[in-house]
């Protein structure tokens, strides 16, 4: 007769709430969140490309939208998100070569990702305003 056996007690991996929050964890979460934001942000890029291809009227509409305060904020968010995700990706590519995995290196890379993406976004927008003077 078959006997009912208790299920094997397998080790389960501890989850987020067990650990002290570290900057590597925060950057890892941000990498995923920025990735998802960019996923939906591409719809904006495609909308813009299709508008350019559709003609001057459609293009004028999309340029007007991007020129509003909300449009500018979305663009600012999109550019920061793209740069942050790209630098986060570089970090992952460095880790793929088995470098930068020691605690100090990880901490440094996490900070470099944040400082680098904020700095590059600022530089990009200063250049943008210098070229266009507020006109898209």
């Amino acid at each position, binding site marked *: 007769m078959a006997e009912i056996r208790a299920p*094997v007690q397998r080790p389960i991996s501890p989850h987020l709430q067990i650990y002290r929050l570290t900057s590597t964890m925060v950057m890892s979460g941000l990498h995923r969140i920025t*990735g998802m934001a960019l996923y939906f942000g591409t719809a904006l890029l495609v909308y813009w*490309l*299709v508008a*350019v*291809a559709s003609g001057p009227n459609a293009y004028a509409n999309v340029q007007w939208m991007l020129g509003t305060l909300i449009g500018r904020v979305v663009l600012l968010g999109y550019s920061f998100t793209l740069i942050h995700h790209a630098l986060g*990706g570089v970090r992952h*590519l460095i880790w793929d070569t088995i470098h930068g995995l020691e605690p100090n290196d990880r901490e440094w890379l996490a900070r470099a990702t944040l400082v680098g993406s904020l700095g590059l976004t600022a530089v990009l927008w200063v250049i943008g305003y210098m*070229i266009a003077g507020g*006109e898209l």
Partner: protein
Amino acid sequence: MERNATDMRTPLGRVRGFGSARSGTEHFWYQRLTSVALLPLSVAVILIVVALLGRNHAAVVQILGSPIVAITMLLFVVSMAYHMKLGMQVVIEDYVHDEAQKFTLLIGNSFFCVVIALSAVFAILKLSFGV
């Protein structure tokens, strides 16, 4: 059946006998491959967008439709569509555990990325060929 000491499969896994999914590291590899491609392409696309700032429609059409710019944009949107399809797939597989919901979302993910890629490709080609 004798259980081999090096057999990593769980009893359930052995009973099901599905074997390997036969894709191995393909997902990981293409995620990395597209990310490496997207680094220089993103820089190029940002430069193109900066170059378009403040220009009128005719100038934007001319620049986006010129061969080097159009090819760069095509490489960018295709690599990005594939990269984001792979990325969102992982997110769905990580968080959605109901099979019906998961498959619906995975199908939706593929459709969305194909629509994004083909719409962008169509727009860029239209600008290039001026139809």
